[in-house]
Every structure is written in C-alpha cells, then in structure tokens.
C-alpha cells in the first residue's frame, strides 16, 4: 500500500482525486454530474494539453519551452490565412502550418543544443519573435471569414469544412473532436518517450547530459527532436484553436506556456529533467481542467477564483510530492 504511493502516477491521481472530490462537493446543483460538463472540460483543456505534450518532451530532455503560446498564435494565423485568404486545401494548409511549427521548434532547439544558449532565454526570445511575426503576417488583424477588400468593402468566404470538422463533436456527440486530437498527441508523445530509441536519449540527456554524451548519445539531435516536436504540437494546438475560434487571432495563446508547464509539473514531471512522462501530463491536464471547470460552474468571483486556484494547486502538489 505504502509502496503504491511511490509510483508517480498514483501520486498524480491523488491530486486529481482531490480536485474531483471538490467537484463532487461543489457540484453547482448537480451540474458537475452531467456528462456534458466533463466533455466540455476535456474540450477546454485540449489545446493546453496538446501544448503540454510537447512541453513534456522538452522538459524530460532537461529544457523548457516558453515559445509554445506564441507559436500557437503564429500557427493559427498561418493556418487561417492559408485556408481563408488563399483557399488552400486543408491538408496543404495543415502541412504548411506544421512545417512552420517545426521550424520554430528547430530554431529554439538549435539555439539550445548547438549554440548552448540557456533554454529559458532562447525560448523567451523566440516567444517574443514569433508573436511579432504573427502580428506582422496578420497585419494586426484577426484572420477571419470577413475579408476586407482593397477598396475598403468587406467580402465573406465560406468556412472550410476542416474548421467545422475540428470543432465538431464525435462519438455520438459525446466527445469534442479536439479532445481526440489531444489524445492522439498524448499517444504520439508516449510512443516517442517510451517506445522509441530517441525517447531513451531524451531521458538520458535530461538526466545527465555529460553521461549521455560519454555514452554516445546524440545529445544535440535528441534536443532538436524534442524542441522540433514541441513546435509541431504547438502548431497542432494552433490549428485546433483557429478551428474552434473560426479565425486566426495573432494574440491567441498569450500566456498559455505557463499553463502548459503547470500541467506538466502538476502531473509530477520534474523540471530538472530526466524524469516523468506524458501519462502524468494527461493526468495533470485533466486535473487543471477540472479545477477550472469547477470554479467556473460554481461562478466563483474572480478574486476568490484566483485565490482558490493557488490554494488548490498547492494542496494538490503537497498531496503528491515525493517523500524526502
């Protein structure tokens, strides 16, 4: 019994159980017990969760990526421009956006691995840069179905089906499509971390970079992979965000990086690197998702909501912290 508490995901589930228990108590006249509440929770947390999947890879490799929120915004703009303004077919637009995300991730990765810049400052620089690029590409405007013509009049384009598909509900209306995208991202990162050789390289690089290098681990390539994939996930999140908002907002994703990191950490993955996993991140995402949902359905006023969020995060983390 005692030994079970040593297992990371048991501890992570403990934190989730705490939040869930609060939800059962403060159920807002039973609203917490409707399936729709849980479905919406999962939908709301999906974009953060997708970012957190990529963040997990980077954190396991011993780094951190502050640029994910901005890359999300940039990707939302690129995807919307490609589909709405240029009428590109969905698969081309998706490929283009994922490519841009990968490029942004590889830029951070190159700075961190080859040029040995501290991850925090390298990705902070990229966070600022990508936001600027998003604003430059969009001209500071939201890219939506409403298109201003050169003569100042407005024209409307139809929303491509890919938007509706991603914003739809599937499985008999019980799950949002973006939630499936999130679960797919969890699966991909799980395969990378647990089933591929490069996953071992990520853990080794994060756990002890010198030892990894001496053991012949391609440390530089491992980090490039982590940041590159993180950029791709951020682009996926950007596409999902654009589909749900039906527009590409250059300000989208502002501040999301902190939530993504919080999800990773509350799951139990250590920011020191070399430990943790994406299963924990899934639990962390659901924990944060329920926390926000519970506060929202109970219409907790803003000030109290912030204080309760802080307090519950502390309680959840204390509950699941490693015994010294």
């Amino acid at each position, binding site marked *: 019994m005692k030994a079970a508490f040593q297992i990371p995901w048991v501890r992570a589930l403990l934190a989730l159980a705490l939040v869930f228990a609060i939800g059962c108590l403060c159920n*807002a*006249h039973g*609203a917490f017990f*409707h399936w*729709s*509440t849980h479905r*919406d929770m999962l*939908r*709301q947390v999906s*974009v953060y969760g997708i970012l957190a999947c990529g963040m997990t890879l980077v954190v396991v490799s011993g780094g951190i990526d502050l640029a994910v929120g901005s890359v999300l915004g940039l990707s939302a703009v690129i995807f919307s421009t490609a589909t709405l303004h240029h009428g590109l077919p969905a698969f081309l637009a998706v490929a283009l956006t994922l490519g841009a995300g990968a490029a942004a991730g590889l830029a951070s990765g190159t700075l961190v691995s080859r040029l040995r810049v501290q991850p925090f400052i390298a990705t902070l620089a990229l966070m600022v840069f990508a936001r600027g690029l998003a*604003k430059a590409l*969009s001209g*500071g*405007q*939201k890219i*939506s*179905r*409403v298109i201003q013509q050169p003569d100042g009049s407005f024209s409307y384009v139809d929303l491509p089906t890919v938007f509706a598909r991603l914003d739809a509900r599937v499985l008999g209306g019980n799950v949002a499509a973006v939630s499936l995208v999130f679960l797919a991202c969890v699966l991909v990162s799980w395969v990378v971390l647990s089933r591929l050789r490069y996953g071992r390289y990520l853990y080794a690089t994060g756990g002890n970079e010198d030892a990894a290098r001496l053991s012949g681990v391609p440390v530089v390539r491992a980090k490039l992979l982590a940041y590159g994939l993180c950029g791709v996930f951020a682009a996926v999140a950007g596409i999902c*965000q654009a589909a*749900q*908002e*039906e*527009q590409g*907002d*250059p*300000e989208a994703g502002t501040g999301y990086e902190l939530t993504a990191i919080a999800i990773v950490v509350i799951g139990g993955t250590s920011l020191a690197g070399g430990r943790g996993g994406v299963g924990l991140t899934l639990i962390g995402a659901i924990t944060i998702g329920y926390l*926000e949902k519970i506060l*929202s*359905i109970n*219409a907790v*006023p*803003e000030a109290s909501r912030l204080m309760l969020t802080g307090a519950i995060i502390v309680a959840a983390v204390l509950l699941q912290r490693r015994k010294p």
Partner: protein
Amino acid sequence: RHGDKWIIGMSQCNLGEPWRVQMNADILKAARAHPELEVVFKDAQNDTLAQAAQIGEFVNAEVDLLIVSPKEAAPLTPPVAEAFRRGIPVVVLDRRVLGGDYTQFIGADNRRIGRAAGEWIARRLAALPRMKAGGRARLVELKGLMTSTPGQDRDAGFREAIKGAPVDIVFEADMKWLEPEARKEMESALAVNEQIDLVYAHNDPGAHGAYLAAKAAGREGDILFVGIDGLPQEGQAYVRQRLLAASFEYPTGGKEAVASALRILNGESVPKEVALESRVFTPDNVARGGDSL
C-alpha cells in the same frame, strides 16, 4: 422563474480592465435596486473558448436571461445563438456577435467616439495661437492594443476626423491599454520632439501615464491630454483635476442592460439595437455631468 427570483447570467470576457470591472459594478448596482433580480457573474479571463463554454454552462443551468459581453464576434456567435434558440433571452453588451440570434444589442460605437474625439481635438487645436498663425499642430497618438477592435476603431475614427486638418501625428506607439507603457512611450515622444501640442490616448490611463511623463519633464503645461472611457473615478476625475483636457465617455451599458432585462423578463418587447449615447467631459462641463456628443 426560480422561486420568486429571476436569475440573470452575466458572462464577462475579461476583468483585467477597469472599464469592464466598472461594467460589472454598474450591472450589480442597477440590479440591487430590484430585489426580484439575481445576477450570477462569470468571467472568461480573456479566453474566447472559455467564454463559449461559460455560455453553455449558463444554458445548462437554465438561467432566465443572459447578458454577454463577448470577447470575439465570430467564435461566440454559435453559443449565443444556441442559447437564444433554446429560449433564453440574450442581451449582448458592448461588442457584437454575428447574425441576428440574440434579443438585444446594447453598445456604443468606438469609431464614432474616435471621430468625435478627432473633431473635438481639431477644434481645440485651432484655438491655439500658433495655429491661428498658420502653423501645424504636433500630436502624439498612444494606441490601445492594436490587435483589438476598440483600438482599431478608436484609431480609424480619429484619423477620419482629423483628415485635412493642419495636424501632424509626430509620434505613435501601441501602449497596450497600460499606464506604465504609456508613460514609457511618452518619455520617448518627449525625447524626440521638442514641441508637442496634444496627446490623444485610446484610454484614460494612457492619457494619465502620458501626463505623468510630461509632468516629470516639466512640460505638462505645454501639452493637452485627451483620453477615452470617462469612468467617474478615472477619466472624469482626471478632468476635474485638470490633468486631462477632455475625456470621452465610452459607456458600459450596465445600467441599460439591467433595465432591458427587466422589460424582457416582464414580457415587454425591446428594440433589437440600443446605441448608447456618450458624453464628453471637459473642465468646463464636468461638474454638470458633461455634454452629450
């Protein structure tokens, strides 16, 4: 009707701005006068999708009426329409949604206010001695977040109005609605411009920040400051203290929303659109409550 009370759900997109805090306060104040009303406030922390979910939550909780101050038009149109179709009257405040699936829209027009500010400024500058001598006025524009529609509208309306007037915009910067940013940008404007006649800021905190920068440089006497929003404890107070030459009210519509809500709940019909009147406050008229535009 829940017992002897009407429950009104109020979905606010963000409470990080004083103006929106004021909107909630106005709604609360107006509703307090009617014991049969109970308002449940939620705020979406500036997140469009969170606000969409929130509207869904209100629908599930079967509120009697919904007041929504949406963050974005397009993404919030479907949830608002869904609520409306489910029979819940919806009052949309300040920013629009697309289509017609709502009960009433209440809001002021940022473009119109920007235009009014531009016209007032052009008139006020024409009275300067230098301008009478045929000179051109030098103007600083401190913009709100230019990716937001209010910022874009307050800029566009203003520029329409000053077109043709002998006015040059010698410095412009995005101060993102924030007072410290405005002060910083104004310091730069002062550093590169010997002569500044007027500062037009997209909100009152921005104008106040610019004023403080000019005061620190000892140049506040040479410059006029104009802001927008005109909240009682902010813009109006600055005008009373003669820090600002003018503040243009951007009404929150909170009081009007509650009034409409009462009428809707009592089965009366209401107009689809309510355009809020706005006022200008200057040192001369602020004591008597400003002049409407």
